[in-house]
């Protein structure tokens, strides 16, 4: 797998993703500045957590204007795998690559804690290494992770099986306990919890590895099929 991690000014989980994919998984990974304009050659693009451009207006609201965004949209439209984590999820919804929006947590407080999640759909490129109904624990660390979509959109999301992770104990007010979901095509995932923070036994356990291993498998199978 050949991954790109987009680094926006204010991103702060880009290095953690580089470490998880490059050092822990031993896969190819490149940091791409948000000022770049192409993403050719990659088979996975990651949009990291952090506070892009300070997140002062709304989370992700400024990042969607970054020079890299047209390339990201084209990459996604062509079926490339895109994973947005935390601020990355917020950016993808702002950019229209995922439905809905992320509002302030109902407590209006930033929350950092281990969060048990239930795998709602194990048949996606991002979750095929998990079992449906399995509980995995990943850290969350966000102030604006309260997922909202209007009723019609929400219904379509559920009908399509787009929800991949749900909170076991909803920490932030998200509708339908949604912690992570894909687009209708299934090649773009946004999630608030941080799988890249849970890839080493010593640090937080390894419950997050499955996300990256799932992608590796999906990409390698895809590459094989394409040959």
């Amino acid at each position, binding site marked *: 797998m050949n991954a790109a991690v987009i680094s926006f000014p204010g991103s702060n989980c880009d290095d953690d993703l580089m470490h998880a994919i490059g050092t822990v998984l031993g896969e190819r990974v490149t940091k791409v500045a948000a000022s770049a304009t192409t993403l050719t050659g990659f088979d996975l693009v990651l949009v990291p957590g952090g506070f892009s451009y300070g997140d002062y*207006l*709304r989370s992700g*609201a*400024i990042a969607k*204007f970054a020079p890299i965004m047209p390339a990201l949209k084209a990459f996604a439209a062509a079926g490339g795998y895109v994973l947005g984590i935390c601020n990355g999820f917020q950016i993808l*919804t*702002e950019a229209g690559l995922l439905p*809905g*929006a992320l*509002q*302030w*947590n*109902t*407590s*209006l407080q930033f929350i950092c804690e281990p969060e048990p999640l239930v795998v709602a759909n194990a048949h996606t490129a991002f979750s095929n290494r998990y079992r449906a109904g399995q509980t995995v624990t990943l850290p969350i660390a966000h102030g604006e992770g*309260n997922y*909202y*979509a*209007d009723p019609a959109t929400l219904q379509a999301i559920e009908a399509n099986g787009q929800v991949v992770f749900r909170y076991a104990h909803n920490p932030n*007010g998200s509708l339908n306990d949604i912690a992570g979901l894909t687009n209708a095509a299934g090649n773009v995932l946004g999630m608030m919890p941080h799988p890249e923070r849970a890839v080493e036994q010593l640090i937080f356990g390894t419950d997050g590895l499955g996300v990256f291993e799932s992608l590796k498998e999906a990409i390698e199978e895809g590459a094989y099929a394409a040959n």
Partner: protein
Amino acid sequence: MFKAKIYVNYKPSVLDPKAQVIQNTLRRLGDDNVQDVLVGKYFELTLAAADQAAAEAQVARICDEMLANVNTETFRYTVEELAVAQ
């Protein structure tokens, strides 16, 4: 020179956690006669434009693309020309 005054509010159908917290706090502190709270954002942009129509068009675009998230928010604005002396 034109000045745009822009209001961005949550759509009525969207539950706003901020408004909720403010109203709860007011209630707890004894201001329980406050029956409704709306929390919005307010922006002022000062911009040079050829005419009123051009200014309005630009402001509408900036609101739509940047200042409001149209999934959850609505916006309204006024644009007025500033007296030259200013």
